[in-house]
């Protein structure tokens, strides 16, 4: 049974594999500077085999919405709110395997389900949505209900319904119709019940013996389809993918490869890539981000939303549209802006729409000698990793280490005073560098700050809301520092250092594979293999996604390991 404790231990392993757990001894500069990735010599193919436990991940809000819109069209209104997600080991995707549904949550799911279902059977939509009509609208109709529930069920459950399941929903539609004297009301209640079923809300998986690994197990074809589509598209499988599962094609390497190619070539890949980076960058934290508006009056709710979108557009444009090198996201001068962001960046953004129309996005390229470039200098990074009233080299440095280099930074010791660091009006210590130097006289603090601050201080030209500045309290800001032995003097050079750091691509491999599987990948050998492939493909992210999706390990699982499941380690398949 998983527990948080074992997860933490597991993550330590991952960090070790990707970049190393930073040690904060008083003199760590050498160790951290060169902390090498745990290298494994070339491994035999079998050593890479890395089956995982079956997971049961709760659909995220976006996934729920994507599925509904895929099935019933984008005009269906969801209403309702989703339960908060849980970040485990740095990813919501991993936390989705730990969360359940509370009473408050089920109430929202129930309300949403009934609202969605009533739109589907609404007089305006029913003829388009449903392929049959009841003999009598005021009575139950087995045949029509069965037809509708079987068709919708295949998509919502991501597999065909069993006879028992279908019968339950037909019965539900019938009792509903009898009580309300309306076929459509009954059908609507039955649809709503399916929409709040755990089989829809959780992505459950089914295993079967793996002929390629004697004694091993793999996901069955429908579970494979589900895993592929949520990874690549952040939504449920479409008809073609379900058909590939049904025909058994997904149980062949060739069949999987065909589907993966199709899915990666689809424009929907963007949705999948975005979903990963939203999770990876921790953009959900914008929900609770606040800024002192006296100091940062331009930082509006719109600016915060645009800042996230800017970084996502930068990344998607580079990685998907231009098939670029992942490491270039730290150096690219190309981005996209709106008028709202233009005021913060202090660059002119001409919009030609009428007053009050929503801002449009425009491609923008910073000049070659501009201090800005790469996502570290964008508002989304600098503002998100800053407290309300100032910038923070420490928070930014820590985020860079943990999120982008996969190096765990220990939490500060208890009872440390941060007065000096937080006092941005201090006449003695005018810049953040001065304040941190004064703060780090304590050797316990100094060890960690040595690891974090030099990279965070390189971003001090960006204030707490991401605006460019060259002085603080009249004193010139010094942005020099070093990252793992590479010296730099500007934010642009920091971007280059991150670009060139070997942990940068291996961290992405580690996090993207954890995102795909819903668990931290602990097998160093497999990660090493993926790292090599990633490098061989010029660090193209869609190629890495394909490598992960086509890997045997993507589908390799261990059997369920509980007493209850002893009798049938793998759930007996009912006739479908």
């Amino acid at each position: 049974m998983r527990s948080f404790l074992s997860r933490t231990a597991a993550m330590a392993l991952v960090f070790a594999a990707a970049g190393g757990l930073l040690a904060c001894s008083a003199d760590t500069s050498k160790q951290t500077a060169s902390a090498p990735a745990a290298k494994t010599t070339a491994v035999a193919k079998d050593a890479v085999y890395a089956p995982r436990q079956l997971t049961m991940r709760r659909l995220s809000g976006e996934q729920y919405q994507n599925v509904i819109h895929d099935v019933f069209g984008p005009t269906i209104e969801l209403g309702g709110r989703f339960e908060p997600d849980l970040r485990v080991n740095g990813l919501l995707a991993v936390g989705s395997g730990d969360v359940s549904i509370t009473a408050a949550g089920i109430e929202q799911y129930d309300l949403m389900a009934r609202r969605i279902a009533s739109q589907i059977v609404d007089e305006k939509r029913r003829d388009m949505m449903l392929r049959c009509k009841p003999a009598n609208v005021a009575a139950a109709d087995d045949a029509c209900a069965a037809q509708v529930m079987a068709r919708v069920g295949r998509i919502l459950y991501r597999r065909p319904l069993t006879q028992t399941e279908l019968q339950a929903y037909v019965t539900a539609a019938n009792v509903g119709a009898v009580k309300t004297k309306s076929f459509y009301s009954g059908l609507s209640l039955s649809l709503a019940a399916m929409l709040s079923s755990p089989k829809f809300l959780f992505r459950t998986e089914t295993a079967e013996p793996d002929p390629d690994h004697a004694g091993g197990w793999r996901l069955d074809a429908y579970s494979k389809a589900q895993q592929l589509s949520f990874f690549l598209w952040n939504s449920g499988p479409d008809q073609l993918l379900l058909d590939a599962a049904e025909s058994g094609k997904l149980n062949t390497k060739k069949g999987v490869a065909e589907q993966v190619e199709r899915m990666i070539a689809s424009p929907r890949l963007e949705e999948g890539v975005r979903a990963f980076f939203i999770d990876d960058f921790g953009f959900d934290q914008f929900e609770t981000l606040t800024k002192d508006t006296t100091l940062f009056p331009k930082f509006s709710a719109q600016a915060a939303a645009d800042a996230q979108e800017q970084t996502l557009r930068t990344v998607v444009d580079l990685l998907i549209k231009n098939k670029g090198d992942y490491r270039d996201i730290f150096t690219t001068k190309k981005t996209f802006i709106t008028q709202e962001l233009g005021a913060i960046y202090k660059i002119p953004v001409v919009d030609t729409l009428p007053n009050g129309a929503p801002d449009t996005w425009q491609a923008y390229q910073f000049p070659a000698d501009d201090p800005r470039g790469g996502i570290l200098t964008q508002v989304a990074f600098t503002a998100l990793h800053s407290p309300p009233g100032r910038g923070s080299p420490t928070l930014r440095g820590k985020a860079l280490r943990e999120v982008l280099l996969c190096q765990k930074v220990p939490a500060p010791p208890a009872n440390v005073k941060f007065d000096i660091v937080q006092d941005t009006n201090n006449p003695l210590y005018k810049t953040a560098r001065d304040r941190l130097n004064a703060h780090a006289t304590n050797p316990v603090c100094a060890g960690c700050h040595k690891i974090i601050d030099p990279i965070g201080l390189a971003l001090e030209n960006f204030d707490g809301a991401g605006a460019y500045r060259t002085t603080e309290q009249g004193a010139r800001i010094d942005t020099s520092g070093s990252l793992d032995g590479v010296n730099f003097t500007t934010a642009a050079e920091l971007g280059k250092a991150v670009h060139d750091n070997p942990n940068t691509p291996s961290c992405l491999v580690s996090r993207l594979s954890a995102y795909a599987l819903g668990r931290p990948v602990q097998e160093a050998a497999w990660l090493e293999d993926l790292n090599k492939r990633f490098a061989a493909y010029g660090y193209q992210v869609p190629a890495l996604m394909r490598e992960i999706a086509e890997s045997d390990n993507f589908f390799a699982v261990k059997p369920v390991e509980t007493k209850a499941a002893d009798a049938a380690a793998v759930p007996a398949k009912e006739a479908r």
Partner: protein
Amino acid sequence: MPGPRTYLSPVLGACALTLACLGGSFSPAAAETRSYVVSWFSMATNSNDTDCGPGGPNPGVQIQYRKNLADLGYTPAQIEELVKKSQTGEGGEMFDILRNRGRMNGKPVSPYIYPATAIDSKWKAIVGKEAYGFNLDGKGEATKNGFVDPETHEKGVNNELYRAFGCYISMRGSLEGRPTYWAWAWGQLKDSQPAWLITIDGADLTKDGPVTVTFDRALEHLKSNVDGSPRADATYRYDSDPRSHNSFKGEFKGGVLTISEHGDFHMLQNPLVVPEFKLAKTHLRMKFKPDGSLTAFIGGYQPWADLYFSFGSGGIGIEQCITGDVPGLYWLMRKHADADPDPKTGQNASISATYYIEAVPAFAAQPPTPKVAGDAGER
């Protein structure tokens, strides 16, 4: 604090790189160009306790209405009855009477559209000695009743509009203590009226030297920060309508920018203030503030009939809410107008005025030239 910011480098840099995608171009490169967007506009006021003489400023509109009714011959008892009814919402009779209190050939007409048909309520004008403004007539101290500017201490300042309006309670205030009328008008307009842009060109705006100042209307309204304060560094497009373009040569000296060309100023504006804002013999005095913003006084002779009808068209609504006696404005401006005499009657058509402006840094861009049908390739 940082000094006034220079927009040269970002403007040029951005221009070179993004011209194609932005579809606009920025001000032609002088050695230094700064653009601003006007973030506050009002009559320049500096009220004090004694400037309306004994009894203080003019009364509020509710009191004035009683006087209007009395002037029309209603008895005190009738007046009380009418007022009472108007307040309980039982009858709008009082408002109908007031709305038609003008008399033309003995028949009731609107006093707002025909202000000369209303009885002159003989409202007070400023008797104080100080007013912001300029020596427009060039007479200096020789000006009869000229004001002294409280900032420059210049004598013979012409600002008869301030004299005429200054004792209306809603027009009273100081530069910082915004007069209620102007605060209301600005609050009403700032988020929807096209903004005004100021662009200053010079060799080096941190040093004394010749400058060119232009005023234009923008296609966008003023943009605001999260706390409602005007937003710095936002982008606006120039409205290419020549009726809103003004350019003056001037100089920057000792921290003050003034203009040496005193031609006409004209700007299309929201009808709430005046449909077309016009000044003749324009004078300007502008200062840069350490936070990058600027303040300015702009003065000249303004056609007062235009101004009157902007208030008059608001009718009883404006009268009730904003100013007090609307026809009174007509009588006051007619009396104090000090320029452009009619050759026959001698009645002056213009009145000396000075307005106060605040502005924050902005980017200003030329809109793309409209394509005209018949251009090659545009069919």
